């Protein structure tokens, strides 16, 4: 049956209306003259208040997860810290949510909204934990559910972690549509939305982000009660940017204005996200730079016209870590703390382990998520799969890891190392599309908010972008 069944050109023409109908939001009303849109209006115009979000989540076993001090991991990090250093590391055990990850916070609000607006079913495009979250909550609300995954390469080999997520979705009664590698997933997704009339449970809608605000809010309040202060830093595994955005907004809502918000991604530099060959040579299907950097640079590349996940508005610093170090810390979490979690969700833990060594002993760094583990997801099937795909497993300097070629485990906890991505580098990539545009005062104000920098700095960075372009 060698015929095309996906009408890409037609779907492209109809996409605005398909999205509008399937999200129940007309994004045009948030647009402003020039380049910007009113982010605050979009976030406040959903008809759902923060109190509503808390109530909705409470009723479906989402949120209020345990915040635990990782004493033994902290003790381990202090072995490599100088006197007086080695911050206390806490973990928000998000694996305790319905469906096993923080993604249930996002799905809870989306699915509640879908039900309220009278949709018969919901669709989400995700190869990650979000699928299980949407499926579980759709089951709870008696809605039909379709999850669309990028899963197989052209040799019909699937990523084991994604297979496990498909199984979880099916366990909650969802229909799982699995696709081979390629950005055309967006059109397959649009086609399903159009044909079914279901709700688009986008990760990037305002609902999806509002749901995470409770996570940051809980962290700030719980630590105020138990430790008498807000944490010095909260670190978020960063992919599409929603996790960091929602957490930071929740911290601010609780008044934790001084708390630093850090992003952490697994370094997959060199692997092309749309490459059929590279697809099964990576060990992380999310939380990596292949999503983290493009979504920070251009948040509106998602499945809605304006993403509510806008990490550059909130991020204070951004770090990358190699795959081998995340596997190492995943093992440490299990044998030192009795918590079998991750691995992808432990990306920020690996970074926190290193950062804690540079922070004072009485300071607190919170790792704001964990995720369930199991067949396919666990670090053993991930590493076994990597080896079968000719990726070398070696011990050595983690910073020398070449994604797709090898995975380098540290020989000691002291060798876990991280790299910082200067935020100005991401800001300049963001600004590149405006370098030959004449910008109004309102445009510049929008860019200041988008990039969390001053007027002067926006102008300075645009100037730098122009100079760099001329040099080329």
């Amino acid at each position: 049956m060698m015929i095309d069944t996906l009408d890409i050109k037609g779907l492209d023409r109809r996409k605005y209306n398909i999205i509008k109908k399937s999200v129940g939001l007309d994004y045009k009303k948030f647009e402003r003259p020039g380049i910007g849109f009113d982010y605050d209006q979009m976030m406040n115009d959903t008809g759902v208040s923060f109190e509503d979000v808390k109530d909705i989540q409470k009723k479906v076993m989402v949120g209020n997860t345990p915040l635990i001090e990782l004493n033994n991991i902290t003790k381990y990090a202090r072995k490599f810290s100088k006197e007086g250093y080695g911050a206390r590391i806490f973990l928000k055990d998000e694996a305790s949510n319905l469906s096993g990850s923080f993604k249930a916070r996002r799905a809870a609000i989306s699915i509640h909204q879908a039900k309220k607006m009278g949709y018969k079913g919901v669709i989400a495009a995700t190869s990650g934990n979000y699928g299980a979250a949407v499926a579980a909550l759709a089951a709870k609300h008696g809605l039909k559910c379709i999850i669309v995954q990028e899963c197989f390469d052209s040799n019909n080999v699937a990523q084991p972690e994604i297979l496990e997520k498909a199984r979880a979705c099916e366990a909650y009664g969802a229909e799982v549509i699995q696709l081979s590698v390629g950005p055309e997933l967006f059109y397959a997704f649009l086609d399903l939305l159009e044909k079914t009339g279901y709700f688009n449970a986008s990760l990037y809608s305002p609902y999806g982000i509002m749901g995470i605000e409770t996570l940051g809010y809980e962290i700030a309040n719980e630590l105020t009660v138990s430790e008498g202060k807000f944490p010095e830093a909260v670190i978020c595994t960063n992919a599409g940017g929603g996790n960091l955005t929602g957490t930071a907004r929740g911290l601010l809502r609780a008044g934790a204005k001084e708390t630093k918000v850090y992003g952490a991604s697994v370094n997959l530099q060199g692997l092309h996200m749309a490459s059929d060959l590279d697809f099964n040579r990576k060990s992380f299907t999310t939380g990596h730079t292949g999503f983290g950097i493009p979504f920070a640079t251009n948040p509106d590349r998602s499945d809605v016209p304006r993403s509510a996940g806008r990490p550059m508005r909130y991020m204070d610093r951004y770090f990358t870590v190699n795959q081998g170090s995340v596997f190492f810390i995943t093992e440490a979490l299990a044998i030192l703390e009795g918590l079998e979690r991750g691995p992808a969700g432990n990306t920020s833990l690996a970074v926190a382990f290193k950062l804690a060594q540079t922070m004072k002993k009485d300071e607190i760094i919170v790792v704001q998520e964990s995720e369930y583990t199991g067949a396919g997801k666990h670090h053993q099937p991930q590493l076994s799969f990597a080896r079968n795909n000719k990726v070398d497993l070696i011990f050595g300097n983690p910073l020398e890891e070449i994604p797709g070629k090898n995975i380098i485990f540290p020989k000691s906890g002291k060798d876990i190392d991280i790299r910082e991505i200067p935020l100005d580098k991401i800001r300049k990539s963001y600004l590149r599309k405006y370098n030959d545009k004449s910008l109004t005062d309102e445009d510049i104000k929008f860019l200041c908010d988008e990039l969390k920098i001053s007027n002067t700095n926006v102008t300075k960075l645009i100037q730098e972008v122009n100079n760099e372009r001329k040099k080329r």
Partner: protein
Amino acid sequence: MLVEKGKFVRIRSHLILPENRNTDLPESTQKVPYKMWAKGYLLDEAELYEESTIVTATNRVITGILKEVEPKYKHSFGDFVTEINVMRSIILKEVWGNDD
């Protein structure tokens, strides 16, 4: 092999042929068809590896090549990975010291 009507099966179809895929894609992706896998109940009896029609969990009727009957979950905890044990020993030794 003839598969009877009503069996739970997995099908596969091609959504886009290689010649119609975007030329901006990496070569390894561009040169292969864009494929879809789905599961559901056979609407009519069909031959394995031949065209068939299924009804899915959301009552959609779709067509594809019949690939698998009563598909099982094949993912697992993988093969034994020595390196995990090595990491475990390193961590335990560094935190708790050597056993006496």
